[in-house]
């Protein structure tokens, strides 16, 4: 008997219940647990929670304005004005705003990474990112500054709503679903929160209506 059989047979002989139909019924229904009260204004709630988690938030009514907003933000913080962006954002007028944002996956030397997001969650001020050929995971991970351009209509109330959106638009989850809630941080030294551990030092969320 191999390890798998040994472990499973030990569990089988000790287990009180053993009912496959119960298992499949639960999977088919995937019921939700207790939910937080639904916010009246998803965008306002998302912004409030995101700021609480040390993300920066900017808003614009025109996607074409995104490069100008970003350029102002980066210059205001004395940050480099070059980086990389996702292919879906390659068409924005980056160079007109004085930014150098080629569309390719991030390398270690890239200091700014601009991404979109699959959706965002108001409850916790969280971005939901799906990995894929056009949505490389490294862009939100390796650079010191992560900028996410987000359509406010893609803000949902809870993570449960986000899973439903994923089920609706894709058959199964991609290799990696990453939920991002603010800049990376550590409190390992004397339980003192320090922003910028191994991931980005800052996260800028730009809410841009289409």
């Amino acid at each position, binding site marked *: 008997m191999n390890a798998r059989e040994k*472990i499973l047979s030990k569990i089988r002989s*000790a287990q009180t219940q053993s*009912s496959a139909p119960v298992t499949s019924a*639960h*999977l088919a229904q995937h019921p939700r*647990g207790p939910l937080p009260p639904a916010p009246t204004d998803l965008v306002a709630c998302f912004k409030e929670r995101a700021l609480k988690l040390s993300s920066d938030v900017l808003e614009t009514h025109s996607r074409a304005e995104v490069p100008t907003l970003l350029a102002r933000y980066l210059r205001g913080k004395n940050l480099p004005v070059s980086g990389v962006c996702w292919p879906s954002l390659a068409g924005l007028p980056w160079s007109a705003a004085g930014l150098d944002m080629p569309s390719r996956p991030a390398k270690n030397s890239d200091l700014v990474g601009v991404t979109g997001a699959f959706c965002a969650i108001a409850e916790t001020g969280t971005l939901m990112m799906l990995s894929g050929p056009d949505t490389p995971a490294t862009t939100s991970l390796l650079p010191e500054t992560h900028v996410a351009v987000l359509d406010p209509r893609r803000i949902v109330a809870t993570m449960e709503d986000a899973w439903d959106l994923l089920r609706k638009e894709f058959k199964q989850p991609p290799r990696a679903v990453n939920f991002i809630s603010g*800049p990376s941080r550590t409190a*390992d030294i004397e339980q003192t929160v320090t922003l*910028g551990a191994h991931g980005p030092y800052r996260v800028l969320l730009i809410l841009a209506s289409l």
Partner: protein
Amino acid sequence: MQNTSLQFRNQVTIKLADARLQDALSRLQSRFVEGRSAVISEIADLEEARTAAATIRDRVINNLEHWLVHFEQQATACGAIVHWAETGADVNRIVAGIAAQHGVKTAAKSKSMVSEECGLNDALELAGVKVMETDLGEYILQLAKEAPSHIVAPVVHKNKEEISDLFAEKHHLPRKTGIAELCREAREVLRPAFLNADMGISGANFLVAETGSALIVTNEGNGRLVTTLPRVHVAITGIEKVVPTLEDVTTLLRLLPRSATGQSITNYVSVLTGKKNAEDHDGPEHFHIILLDNGRSSLVGSEMQEMLRCIRCGACMNHCPVYQNIGGHAYGWVYPGPMGSILTPLLGGIEKSPDLPNASTFCGACAAVCPVKIPLPDLLRKLREKQLQRGMKSWQETFLLKVWAWLALHPTIYAIATRIGVRLIRMMGGKEKLLHTLPGAGGWTDGRDFPAPSGKTFRELHKRGAGQ
């Protein structure tokens, strides 16, 4: 990791006298206890949430075989390779085998308490694989050659001066003193380790049966790096970590970080399903998931089964007056505090940890904060019963318990004995109404006086009260 919990009493004496440790432990209390209480109130009905979480965990454990097999099927269908390990040594052998198969020379590792159970790092070094811990706390411990003292904040026992000295010595860089500077230095030293590693090793906070995914919660981003950059990813976790659906795991995620670090959500929650697709630019080409038993299956269906609900948040230790005073190392194995006082004897052998089930005042704080409602004091009490049944208690304790049991079964004699007893102790207390020593309980009165009772038993007072 070797179990040294037989040394518990000696260790307690040492830890209580360690001023630096005592200072560090006071920080833990203010940050984690107060942090939890500040955000747990965001949940409108905490009782309802805890009950839902406990129900989810029970659903899995009551039907563990089905959920494990379903998880395995889904994970395999998505391109992951699932391994089963009976012991920690089996895990080490499997990981060394995967490393050899893919020509792995270096591995970058994010925090995994299950890998601590196995002593994986030492085993991989022997197999010629250089392992780099990348969680800041675990990295500090690897440099200092020490074990974690907390399952969430592994280096809570060290202050920043010690870490400054350690970094200056090991990094050969000018000594930094600020916490932000120390973090920056560790980031810069570790970044090449992520980029150059052939293999990433992680734990998994949960396994989602519905999708065959491994879920990791992290704050530093190292968990994302080790599961994104290296060409091989190995996730190691316990067989009990399965959760049925994405909705179920979401219910648990509302409680885990709030209970652990006082965060509404961790910075990163990564749900990893299968390996890199042909068109992807990033992600591992090979994804292995190792399911470790190491004694867990023996708890299924037993009176200790509720322990398998545990989601490793650490709230029980943060709130435990024993842990708060002695820290994690005294417990002698991977898991300290109340959950460790139960898991260490159950997974490592009751005979090897005689003191741990007794290292509790039964104050009940652990059970009150547990997000999955594990009745921790009840389980500790059951372990004490097992110790008595196995003759592990001293003859004095066994004799006294027998006398007590006999008296409890003979109410008239019990009433007489207690009436004499309380009057005797009352007399011994004298004018001060305090006893400086108690025969046979010197250990208790070494540090405090015993307040003398009023001289009347409860029954006498009750009878008088009832007559009024």
